[in-house]
């Protein structure tokens, strides 16, 4: 039908085989396709780094969930990224314990080193900085995560080291 009717609407991205494979696996865990929505978004994000409109549409079509429903899920959870992020996402805790132990200064330091504010990505696309509430690591505050790694008892020096390590890995 689509080749007969011309369309200007946004087009879904083709999901990759890995994505489809993992989504299919998740489907076996739930009685309703709706319930797989969040897992599918996580899978897409795992492979694409973030969830673009085209990806959202792809999941919506694949699971037959209206894009509006999926957008509700995607935007409800802070860790589903609906905008492109850098290769490494820095999640700096700004909750009570970390705040008492100086997370504001750490933030200022990161900003001066990388030149990005909260919600921004470095030009080389290596880092995105995002604040998070309590990482459950208050006894070793201040804390942050980079990707899936937790870093604790932070100081400016430690942060310099961490950033340097990630740059070296790139």
């Amino acid at each position, binding site marked *: *039908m*689509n*080749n*007969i*009717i*011309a*369309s200007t*609407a*946004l087009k879904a991205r083709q999901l990759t085989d890995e994505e489809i494979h993992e989504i299919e696996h998740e489907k076996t865990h739930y009685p*309703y396709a709706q319930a797989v929505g969040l897992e599918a978004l996580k899978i897409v994000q795992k492979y694409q780094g973030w969830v673009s*409109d085209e990806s*959202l549409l792809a999941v919506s*079509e694949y699971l*037959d969930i*209206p*894009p*509006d*429903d*999926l*957008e*509700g899920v995607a*935007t*409800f959870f802070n860790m589903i990224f609906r905008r492109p992020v850098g290769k490494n996402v820095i999640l700096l805790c700004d909750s009570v314990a970390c705040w008492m132990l100086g997370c504001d200064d750490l933030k200022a330091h990161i900003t001066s080193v990388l030149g990005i504010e909260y919600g921004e990505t470095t030009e080389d696309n290596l880092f995105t900085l995002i604040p998070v509430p309590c990482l459950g690591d208050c006894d070793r505050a201040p804390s942050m995560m980079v990707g899936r790694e937790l870093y604790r008892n932070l100081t400016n020096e430690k942060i310099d080291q961490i950033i340097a390590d990630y740059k070296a890995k790139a």
Partner: protein
Amino acid sequence: MASITIDGKVFEVDEKNNLLQECLSHAMDLPYFCWHPSMGSVGSCRQCAVVEYANEEDQKGRLVMACMTEPREGARYSIAAAAKFRAQAIESIMINHPHDCPVCEEGGECHLQDMTVMSGHTYRRYDGKKKTHNNQYLGPFINHEMNRCITCYRCVRYYKDYAGGTDFGPQASHDNTYFGRWQEGPLESEFSGNLVEVCPTGVFTDKPFSKHYSRKWDLQSSPSICTGCSVGCNTNPGERYGTLRRIVNRFNDEVNGYFLCDKGRFGAEYVNSPERIPVSMTRDSHNSDPVQIEPALAKDALKKAAKGAVAIGSPRASMEANYALRELVGEENFYAGISANELGMLNKIIDIYQNKPVNVASVKDIEGSDAVLILGEDLTNTAARLALGVRQSAKNLGRQMGADLNFPIWHDAAIRQLAMDKLSPLYILSPHTTRLDDIAHTSHISSAENSAKIGMAIAHAIDASAPAVEGLNKEEQALALEIAETLKSAKQALIISGTSSLEPALLDAASNIATALHSGNSKANLALVCSESNSMGLALMMQGSGKSIDEAMSAGAKTAIVLENDLYRRAASAKVDAFINSLDQLVVLDHLKNRTGEQANLVLAAATFAESSGTFVNYEGRAQHYYSTFKPDSNIRSSALWLSDKHFNEITADCAAAIANCAAILELTPGENYNFAGLKVPRQHHRYSGRTSMRANINVHEPKQEQDEDGVMVYSMEGVPAIKDAAVLNSPWVPGWNSNQSIFKFQEFAGGPLKQGSKGQRLIANNSTEKTWYEAGTSDFSAEGYKVFPVYHLFGSEELSAYTPAIQEKATSAYVSLSPEDAEKLGLKASDGVQVEHNGAVPFVVRKAIQPGTVGVSVGLKGLNFQDMSAAIALDKAAEWKNPDLWRAANIIVSDKREERVD
């Protein structure tokens, strides 16, 4: 019933309702946001808090949400004790709410304003920054101003859960919570306009109304009836400075309840159209220019023309206008202005309603049914409000599951969780997919004739004494058995069909099925939809005669009087041309310019529903009265008053006396002697402003208040408004409740029927218990070419609303629908057009679920006259094709199922 104590007073309450509803029913002012009588409770806004005490000794009690509380026998509650909590709750709600009231279109009828004042939060302490949001373009009907949102979630519960919309939802969380579409664009639901009334604040407002906005208290209004289709939803039009400004819902427990469709709400501005006929006009010959003629002379000319004339009535004109025309020319010269086929179908519907053992279903009955069969009617496009009703019926299985587990019926979230995707059975037999497919157990694609056959087989399977049919394939035989079993085992089955398919056999089948289901005291619900606001009334007027437009055109008269009717919508163009050419004189009474009126020798400027009073009879045979909202310009009169010298009430009375079944139309108004302490019911609010100044540019003398037709209401703020239990309930208002929520003060209980009825009058009595059958037809269709079936559009197919700019934006030009196979056979590409035999070329859409060999032809859209189609037509690829300017494929939303979307 349970007996409870609230703030020291004892009340008898229904423990099946929640405490909030009972407090409201007992006339207490308890604030709320998220509860809605049609949608139940979710307890999200925390505004209806009260204190519940554990026992007699308990002094402290605990906070509970009244909307989430089942009243317990003997329990003690306090509204007063939770006052502080409610004030705090609203203060936190208001933190992000802008100081917008003076520029907000909700202002003056805002539930949030009312509740804020009621809760005692009258001073703002928060002076920090407020969260702001982007607004979206949501199409021609609705404005979006997200900053005003108080996150009560009513919009989502209405749009998605109640109305079945899929293109809208909540996004993000806490301060960022947002209600809108995932991407900007027109809302797709045909019921989106109700957001305006459902949202307690000014997030969603009426966009066409914005263009000529006026405060609620400055609008003159009256009880009225929608002219959009045969459902007859009750409306409340508002006027200012001589133009119709908007339509809002008027509650009628049995018909529209709290909700209208978007055609009803946004389709009435044809009243202000530049295409209106502003003055009466005459001309000597077809070729000369029309000249204006004074009303008195026009009326004389009309009377003179009446002698020996044929008169053509109208399914969109009032009973009074049709009757006055019949009186003017004599019964023998009066013809229904509809085709022989349609008139025959309407006569059949009356026969079924009268003589078959069925229960004629109101919208409320539809909502209460637990198994539904739709035969060949695309409800969303032909009688939209019924489609919304069917959607509610699908939820009855979930409610039953809840009831079995002793869940309170109002516990919306719990029942939805419990039911998940379990729905009461809905079967649809139709030549194409419909917007109800998403809730249908089965949508079977089949031509109207074949659907009628399946219907006959269903009836036969339920009751073997009903006639059997031949010629169904195996699959369809099995389907018929399955549907028969489902309907038989339902508590309250419902059959829906109607005239839009143009196939009388469908009515026979619907009648047989409903008849077959009759046993003992139980009767099946049956709803047979007609095409226009007074189709049923016109058919009643004809009293079984078959005098259709075809007969009128071959009567050989030299003069014809046409009442509010464009003949080209009723018969083939060539026939109408020949008829008009054979006349010496054509007289037309209408509101808007059309192809018939353009050829008239005498045109009388007729008032619309907004400027006149009258009676419409809806698809159920329910007569309802509409009061004129405002006085038209002196050149415009209601058709009834052009056609008769009698007082309006006399015309109604004569019609009631002369026409079988119509006696009750006299009881629709309290009568011209109605008054309260000598005063009538005002059309204007007591706060109406500018009375002495609004005409000062014309004349500083205020004109005398003019009498209206009914003698019940006045065009003034003087009088006694219908407080609490009046028969003429205009725009509802009570002190402290300026929004539409005030309606509960006029209901028997919150959400219940209005005190003193005003539901209209069912005209067609039925006590039949005898089972009689229609025979199965034998017609086997065979003709060369593609078999034509009609396709309707909620926006654009109906004649009058199509003159409204907002509706035009949602409509499209004429087109044909084809199956993918046929599109390929014709060698069509996206950019091509289709040549329709004898009818020029139009764009096309491909729809998967159309039977090859059939073609859907749009009805009423610009560019093709459905009346000019034969039963089967030849199609070709059009040479040299360019899509017309009015072509908007994106407006064709045919199904909720993804694979069926045209995009």
